[in-house]
């Protein structure tokens, strides 16, 4: 196995007698771009919440870089949600500088003088990289949906996380904007050598961007007690440039939920 960054060992998630995830075993290598697909309710978002640290597994363990993952969010894991990822009361520049200010000033969470200028310069560079250099002083509500997601990506990358977690990051965007964002995230992945985990509804998007696609679904199904069996990664496709087309069985899996047009 290659250089393993994230290791999920025999993880279960249960709420009372409802089993959401069962026996998930996965290893994610450093530098990979893993797309996660699956029908609604198949636990793919729960899986991502585990990695973010929003919840802890009921059984099993998760290791990041060989160390047990803390069950609360931390700066080693960057995140971009579908919505509400950016702070409405800060300008674009301040949104990106936020992470730098938090690490630079324990008590006030604010930098001053030269250090502030250095942080703002770094933030401005990051914003220029995602194509927002003309909106440094705009508030998020003045930006379009696509621009807000660019901002959220810049904000997450400025702390140089080990792993970037994307939860339906382009789900709310128009098709044209979504194509632009695909280009941007692909470039950033290659440039920064990022490790990315992306949950998406869109199977085509998953196969286009990822170099590995995981499909979550229930392995077993009890029609009388559907909640008693949890999901796990039922398909695991390593992708090369040659097999970038989703296989038929996977399209059938998501049949209940047609992928949105690109």
């Amino acid at each position, binding site marked *: 196995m290659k250089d393993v960054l994230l290791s999920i060992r025999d993880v279960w998630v249960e709420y009372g007698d409802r089993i959401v995830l069962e026996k998930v075993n996965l290893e994610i290598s450093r530098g990979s771009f893993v797309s996660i697909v699956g029908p609604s309710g198949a636990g793919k978002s729960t899986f991502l919440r585990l990695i*973010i*640290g*929003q919840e802890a597994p009921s059984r099993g363990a998760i290791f990041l870089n060989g160390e047990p993952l803390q069950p*609360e*969010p*931390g*700066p080693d*894991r*960057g*995140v971009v*949600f579908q*919505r*509400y*990822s*950016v*702070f*409405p*009361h*800060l300008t674009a520049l301040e949104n990106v500088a*936020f*992470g730098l*200010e*938090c*690490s630079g000033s*324990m*008590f*006030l*969470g*604010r930098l001053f003088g030269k250090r502030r200028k250095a942080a703002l310069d770094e933030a401005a560079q990051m914003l220029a990289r995602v194509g927002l250099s003309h909106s440094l002083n705009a*508030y*998020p*509500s*003045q930006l379009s949906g696509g621009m807000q997601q660019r901002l*959220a990506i810049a*904000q*997450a990358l*400025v*702390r140089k*996380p080990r792993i970037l977690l994307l939860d339906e990051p382009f789900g709310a965007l128009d098709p044209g904007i979504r194509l632009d964002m695909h280009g941007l995230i692909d470039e950033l992945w290659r440039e920064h050598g990022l490790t990315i985990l992306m949950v998406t509804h869109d199977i085509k998007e998953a196969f286009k961007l990822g170099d590995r696609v995981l499909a979550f679904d229930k392995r077993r199904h009890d029609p009388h007690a559907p909640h008693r069996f949890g999901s796990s990664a039922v398909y695991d496709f390593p992708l090369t440039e040659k097999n970038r087309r989703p296989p038929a069985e996977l399209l059938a899996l998501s049949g209940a939920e047609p992928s949105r047009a690109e």
Partner: protein
Amino acid sequence: MRRLVNIRPGRGGKVFLGAAPLALVAIGYVVASAARQAENPADKLLPPIEAMWSAWIRMSLEVDPVTGSIPLWADTVASLHRLILGLGISTGVTLAFGLVLGLLPVARATLGPLVAAIAVIPPIAVLPVLFIALGLGETAKVALIVIGITPFMVRDLASQVGAIPEEQMVKAQTLGASTWQIALRLALPQAMPKLLKGLRLSLGPAWVFLIAGEAIASDVGLGYRIFLVRRYLAMDVILPYVAWISLLAVLMGLLLSWISRKFFPWDHTRGAE
């Protein structure tokens, strides 16, 4: 024929439509007053505009020989002092408790029921307790305002802070923010415009509690004055005073709106709720 729900007045139309009822009320008052005066020139219930104007001049320009001060201004200063003190204390308490309750589940579990219990006590019912415990001076009147509006403001702010999307809270933590940094850089700035909004909504009740306190035990103040001259059926003083109190309340509301727009523009841009 267009449906009534689709007919929207233009700019001028709005001004005209808004002014018409006010003008009607004013005209109605003048007519009714004139009718009563014609029947009985000593009538006190609906004094004519001139009588109110001369009473207003008397209250606002002439020194009262007993107290040595001009009544309207002495009353206004005393009332605003109490009101602003009460509002200030309430705002401070609200900011501290609202943030903590909204942000920390442990604090919500501990203090939430207490705040909810305090909020259901009718403040005026506690007024005797305040007069007994704190005496008849300024403290009891300010305390009545504080007790009257703070529980509502705290619960309002706590729910606003609690409504900050979980995505933002998680994002802040992935950017390395501690609980303290989240409170200071995320919750506090987002709470401020909501706090001003809560304060604006509390202005009405605050005036009610102020006037109630002044009516019962005081020797100066806007509420004291209208309850004092009530004994002489001096409607020519009471009505201008009521108008003056309303004007002060409107001005304070406008001031708070202006502060919110000036210092928290992000809460007022298009797209913000």
